[in-house]
């Protein structure tokens, strides 16, 4: 370590900058980053597989828990695919309510991000302020849906709860407060010197690279890519609402900050239209328990970017295949590129700037054997055999137990 001045530091799986376990191994020369190795797989929960073992109604519950922040995004994305296979036309009012909750979720996610970004650059005051204001939208979501994070408002064929007149007024009142606060934050982000110093020119992702690496969401839009599923492939009520797709040409973390705070203003605009135009009518249509055979791909503009769900049904009440591609998986490769030749101090904010959600992203576990350069993926059977062997070593033998229970007629 002394002679070459080059060393590797482990950021994660446990590190104060990361809110979820993920491993970034950074090769450093002094303060300069030479290279980054990203390893996913510390938080894999096997949700896709679990979905295939459960009915569609149970899956809504499960899919909602893919992500703690954009829970509505995932459940809407999943349900849209199911509804497409089942050829369900959901009522207009349900579409508007889905849009309303989706935009409120975007507001809460972007405010959360702003606070986290402040924390990563050592500006805790911003964290405290934004998270206080975020409470306004969290309370609103709790009032509308009964929950602060996992709203459980979606069901196949519509939504489960109505928005009353009084609630609509409360939404408008809260949006006014939030808009005023957001304008204040835009003021801070564009004038406060130490913030600009830490964000400008950091984590550059050029327009070409953003396209080449398939970045999505605010990360791509801050590199001048005008890509937004809400406009390109309208779902829910977005087709009949007017809003702008915010882009920025800074290509860096500063641009991503501006895109997010300006998107907040667009969200307020959308919510006002939704409340104004919300048609009366039923909340849901009856959905069949068994979804006919077919397949569908659904896209949704989550706060972090394009979320994608693929569902294949086989005519039973359980899906044949569920595939989730969360926005972070699309963006995480760009991080490696953004960190090239930057300083260690920029590392936390560059990672945070894609607004990573690692639990959504995590894939299967692969084991690298460093000594023999061999890679291994643990399959279900291997894991099962390993578990039996481990317990046997510790004096617990399940084989006997299995025989006994079977003998007893279970």
């Amino acid at each position, binding site marked *: 370590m002394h002679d070459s001045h080059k*060393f590797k*530091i*482990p950021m994660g799986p446990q*590190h*104060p*900058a990361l809110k979820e376990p993920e491993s970034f191994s950074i090769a*450093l020369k002094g*303060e300069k980053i030479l290279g980054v190795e990203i390893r996913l797989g510390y938080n894999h929960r096997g949700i896709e597989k679990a979905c295939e073992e459960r009915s569609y109604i149970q899956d809504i519950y499960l899919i909602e828990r893919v992500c703690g922040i954009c829970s509505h995004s995932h459940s809407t994305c999943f349900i849209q695919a199911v509804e497409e296979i089942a050829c369900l036309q959901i009522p207009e009012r349900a579409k508007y309510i889905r849009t309303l909750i989706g935009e409120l979720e975007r507001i809460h996610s972007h405010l959360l991000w702003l606070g986290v970004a*402040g*924390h*990563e*650059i*050592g*500006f*805790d*005051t*911003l964290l*405290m*302020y934004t998270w*206080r204001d975020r409470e306004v939208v969290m309370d609103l979501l709790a009032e509308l849906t009964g929950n602060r994070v996992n709203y459980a408002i979606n069901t196949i064929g519509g939504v489960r709860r109505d928005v009353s007149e009084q609630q609509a007024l409360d939404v408008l009142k809260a949006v006014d407060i939030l808009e005023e606060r957001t304008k204040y934050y835009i003021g801070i982000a564009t004038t*406060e010197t*130490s*913030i600009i*110093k*830490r964000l400008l020119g950091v984590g550059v992702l050029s327009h070409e690279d953003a396209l080449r690496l398939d970045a999505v969401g605010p990360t791509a839009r801050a590199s001048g890519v005008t890509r937004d599923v809400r406009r390109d492939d309208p779902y829910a009520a977005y087709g009949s609402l007017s809003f702008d797709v915010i882009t920025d040409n800074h290509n860096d973390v500063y641009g991503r900050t501006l895109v997010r705070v300006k998107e907040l203003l667009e969200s307020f605009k959308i919510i006002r239209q939704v409340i104004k135009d919300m048609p009366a009518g039923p909340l849901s249509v009856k959905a069949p328990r068994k979804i006919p055979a077919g397949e569908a791909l659904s896209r949704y503009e989550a706060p972090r970017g394009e979320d994608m769900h693929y569902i294949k049904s086989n005519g039973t009440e359980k899906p044949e295949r569920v595939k989730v591609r969360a926005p972070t998986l699309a963006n995480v490769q760009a991080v490696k590129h953004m960190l090239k030749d930057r*300083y*260690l*101090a*920029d*590392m*936390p904010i560059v990672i945070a700037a894609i607004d990573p959600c690692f639990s959504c992203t995590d894939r299967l576990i692969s084991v690298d054997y460093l000594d023999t350069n061999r890679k291994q993926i643990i399959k279900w059977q291997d894991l099962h055999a390993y578990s039996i062997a481990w317990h046997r070593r510790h004096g617990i033998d399940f084989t006997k137990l299995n025989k006994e229970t079977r003998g007893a007629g279970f």
Partner: protein
Amino acid sequence: MIKALFSILVFPGLIFVGVLSFFAEFADRKLHARLQNRIGPPWFQPFADFIKLVAKEEIIPKEANSTIFQIAPVFALASVITAFLYIPLWDTRALFSFDGDVIVVLYLLTLPTMAIFIGGWYSTSLFARIGSVRAITQLFAYEIPLFMGILSAALLADTWSLYGITVFYNNHPLFWLSNIIGFFVSLIALMGKLEKVPFDAPEAETEIVAGSFTEYSGRFLALFRLTLDIEMVAGASLLAAVFLPVGLNLPLFARFTIYLAEVLFIVGLIALLRTIFARLRIDQMIRFCWKYMVPLGFIQLLINLVLKGILSR
């Protein structure tokens, strides 16, 4: 003999400065919290933290140089307390003083940073090593403006002893106005010394966990934290003695109150400044110090040189 021991260990030495530093930490944390729209800790929180840390198990890394790892915090604490004994508090004269003690105080206040560097380096953790290298890099940036700020005040007073400086400014109260640039330069340099935001790159939590203190725990961490607290009080007292010597002819009680108010004022300024900025990168910090603070220090030096020329005529 007993009187001297009492002064060193109890009042205004170790125990007094320890208690005072806990209150200073409380004031700093509470103000910081209130400015951030939080409730903040109760008044006894720093005491509770200290007692909790002292009672906890300390872990010395297997790879670390055990002796140096354990000595570093004691060394740091001893040097700040010694520095405190040489600073005039509510009197023109400190507990101990001699001609040239201003240099000794500044030197003693540098030692904790050295101890943090050595302790961090020999704990062999990667995070601690990066943190300690940053701490020592930062030292070269803020130490020069701090020296320039305080020594230009000494220059005007035409003495190298803190006693002489306080007497001079007490007799010529309007001259502190000429040192206002020096006061702010020294205050900002002091924030670098105390590793407060925006100069907290050496212990930047989101990058290098806790910097030099990453491997420290239990008693040793408690001593380091106490050191930083006392350093804050010592630094504030030094600034108060050099830049804000008011009312030193008043009765003892009034002088004591004024001293506390001055320390609180400086701690309050530190709390305010650390609330409104983001952390600077280490390269930005160095650039800031050499680009803005040092020239400002030079301006202060020039002002005082010119003033001195006019005065001596």
